[in-house]
């Protein structure tokens, strides 16, 4: 019995260790931006702390099982009646409380970090990208640059990026694991995700939230490049790409999978994002709701704070 437990434990630790430290690092633990770094640090910290707990429990368990198993005891041994002891129980409550308090601090601190402009890039002017999903594609609109892409995303490295997320359909979740964790894109509101890439590079991005038959292939490619390369790309798009018309956009929204494509202009001009709108079709109501929101809404606040 003891042997078996040990053996199971060893194989478990061994597998985890080989894979965690193995040849290729796991995406989430191989961060390429400050948000993903914060998250990877939290994850590693909690893995360490939690392994300690698992090992402690296991050690105590194996110890009592060996020590008090019937075959290791006299035949006439009668276990005592023990109600419990306030002191021992207080200690048992105390240890978890201390751990939870510690983790709470870490968690709260990280929450404010990932919901703010990425650390180190506070004084860059963030690039605003509207990322909207439709079954089963991603549309990236760059309002300031006046361009739009489908299923691929170019971003300048070393600069804060502010993603404005929404969806033309089911709830989706915008996720670039190496740059930072995901956030939902929904049809009746806009959510904000702050990311940044430290260096040029290529990353995978996907919709992480199940959205129907084409969900598995609902991915996009991300390329981070220097600001100059990015500017050049924008210019090139303006020279070569077709303008995005309303008809064309309707066509793009049709359910299905598409390859990459690039346009000048954005769909935001004729189909604005559902900011502060909650899907109400009544424009008057819209307006009053909007005013309400503005009075208690600062730019830093996340879009959901009005709930």
């Amino acid at each position, binding site marked *: 019995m003891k042997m078996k437990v040990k053996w199971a434990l060893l194989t*478990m630790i061994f*597998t*985890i260790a080989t894979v*965690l430290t193995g040849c290729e690092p*796991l995406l*989430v633990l191989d961060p390429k931006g400050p948000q993903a770094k914060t*998250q990877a640090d939290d994850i590693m910290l*909690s*893995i360490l702390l*939690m392994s300690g707990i*698992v090992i402690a*429990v296991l050690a105590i*368990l194996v110890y*009592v*099982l060996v020590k008090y*198993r019937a075959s290791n*005891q006299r035949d006439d*041994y009668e*276990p005592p*009646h*023990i109600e*419990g002891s306030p002191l021992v129980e207080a200690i*048992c*409550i105390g*240890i*978890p*409380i201390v751990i*939870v308090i510690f*983790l*709470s601090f870490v*968690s*709260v601190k*990280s929450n*404010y*970090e990932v*919901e703010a402009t990425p650390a180190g890039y506070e004084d860059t002017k963030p690039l605003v990208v509207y990322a909207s999903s439709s079954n089963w594609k991603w549309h990236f609109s760059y309002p300031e640059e006046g361009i739009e892409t489908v299923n691929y995303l170019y971003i300048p490295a070393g600069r804060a990026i502010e993603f404005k997320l929404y969806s033309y359909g089911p*709830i989706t*979740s915008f996720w670039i*694991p190496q740059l930072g*964790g*995901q*956030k*939902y894109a*929904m*049809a*009746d509101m806009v959510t*904000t995700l702050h990311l940044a890439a430290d260096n040029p590079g290529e990353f995978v991005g996907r919709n992480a939230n*199940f*959205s*129907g*038959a*084409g*969900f*598995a292939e609902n991915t996009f490619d991300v390329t981070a490049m220097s600001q100059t390369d990015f500017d050049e790309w924008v210019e090139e798009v303006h020279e070569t790409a077709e303008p995005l018309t309303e008809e064309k956009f309707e066509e793009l929204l049709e359910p299905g999978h598409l390859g990459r494509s690039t346009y000048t202009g954005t769909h935001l001009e004729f189909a604005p994002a559902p900011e502060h709108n909650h*899907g*109400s*079709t009544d424009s008057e109501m819209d307006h009053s709701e909007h005013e309400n929101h503005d009075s208690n809404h600062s730019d830093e606040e*996340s879009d*959901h*704070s009005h709930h």
Partner: protein
Amino acid sequence: MDFFDRFAVPHPSFLIYASMVGIGLTMVAIVLGITYFKKWGYLWREWITTVDHKRIGIMYLLVALLMLFRGGVDAIMMRYQLSMPDNKFLESQHYNEVFTTHGVVMILFMAMPFITFFFNYLIPLQIGARDVAFPRLNALSFWLFFMGMGLFNISFIVGGSPDAGWTSYFPLANNEFSPSVGTNYYMIAIQIAGMGTLISGINFITTILKMRAPGMKLMKMPMFTWSAFIANVIVVFAFPVLTVLLAMGTMDRLFGTNFFTTGDGGMDMLWANLFWVWGHPEVYILILPAFGLYSEIISTFARRNLYGYKSMVASMVVISVFSFLVWTHHFFTMGQGAFTNSIFSITTMAIAIPTGVKIFNWLFTLWKGKIVFTTPMLYSMLFIPLFTLGGVTGVMLAMSAADYQYHNTMFLVAHFHNVIIPGVVYAMIAGLTFYWPKMFGFMLNERIGKWTAWIMSVGFVLAFIPMYITGLDGQARRMYTYSESTGFSMLNMVAFIGAGIMAISFALLVYNIYYSIRYASRDIGSDPWDARSLEWATHTPVPEYNFAITPQVASTQGFWDAKKNGHELFKGKYEKIHMPNNSGWPFILGCIFFVFGFAMVFSIWPLAIVTLIGILVCLVYRSFEKDHGRYISVEEIEETEAKLRGVKNEDR
């Protein structure tokens, strides 16, 4: 549209046709078999119309085992599909249906009836009662549950299965994105089964509050009864939310209301919130009774009283309150902002504290004990480390910033299976093995039982640890396939092998039942484990009135006191016993509900209206029905008792 077209399956495949044929043949075989052996009358008198909590419990058990099989087949299909990149075994639509039904079936139609089986069988015996407070309602609970289960399970051969995930988030679940009737099945079948659960929640709370044996104060109840009490209080608070939620979802789909639409003032996030306001407490409804069973088993086989009884109870009360304060952790990524996430992050982590207390208490119960490794004990001892692993990964998920990375990935899937399987499924099997002799008068084979536990655990580790890793590597959940370049394939193959090993262990469990039916000794008395609480104080098989004389207790382990300290359980002499009559009404009402549900799923309004009237008529009939039950006379009791004692004496 031809009337019958709507019943066709929208995405048929060979597997579905094959199972249609299989199910058809099985049904025919069962009907023929019952007719051939002339068992219809027996079935009707002894089972279908029964109001006996023990029989109703066993029917719950049968459903649970059947659904464990169905959910298990779904699981193996998913694991096989994912074992290789670009596998063509299931296409996207089928994979989506399979994980949706797997989730619903496992949680609502496997785990729920399994714990309800224990509630039914054990609560009255543990508190020394003759039955539950409302025996006929109890039968109604079962039949509503059964019909809901049946309705849900015909979906894949009539009209198509739901495919929007067991969470069924809107707008994905609305008519535009889920046009087939599959999601109607989800809304209506779960509604019917859920009513059954809510009614039995009320029933068990009343039973525990009003029907305890003399001397059994609240703080002298056995730990399983405590856990059942708290779980049922959670049921009564949480299930109405589900009822309302499903009603709103049904109306959105069938009557064009706008509760969860994204325009016209609807709000899709409302579904997610309400779903988890029910959904999180739901997982505690499952885990608390499991904790209760472990407490009984560990204390029995450590041959010691349960350490820290009071803190065990207190921790469950705290858990039950907190279970309603954490639902947002299921969507930290919805954009509520750092403040809201921080609050729910902390409340979620706080639940780890009472849970930790329980683990320490079990460890301290082993301390200074005299531990015997029976099969139920082995499951419990495997549970402690494996569940701890699941628990600590839960704490990891509770760190909301990090959850942005875990959310929607296989890491999460690994986590909840890691708490549910060692937590709930092991407890169910351990409890089943433990109480098997009480129910059926013989024990399951210990050698096969221990092998089963070990094989299941090896399979479990292989099946789920790799999912933690692929999750951190970016494998999203609910993805029907992935490409070679992702590098997920090796670990997914390991997970498939693990799932296969688990399947072997379940096959062994079935074999064990078969083997023990054939070869196990029937000469085991009524207390084969040397146990501690009241359910072991009556005969095996348990007579329909449970206890000929109502027992009197003075501690949490009345039977132990009687055995070791000369406590007298049964004082006084036989008196006639009042028992409820059998009734066909719950079954008939259940059947009408089934037809009503079917009519709703397919929007066949005339039928829906007729059956709705039928339901009302049944309810009115019941209100005016006069049935005062019957009495078992003293002579009859004496006869039964003598016979049961005689059986024992003869055997000894």
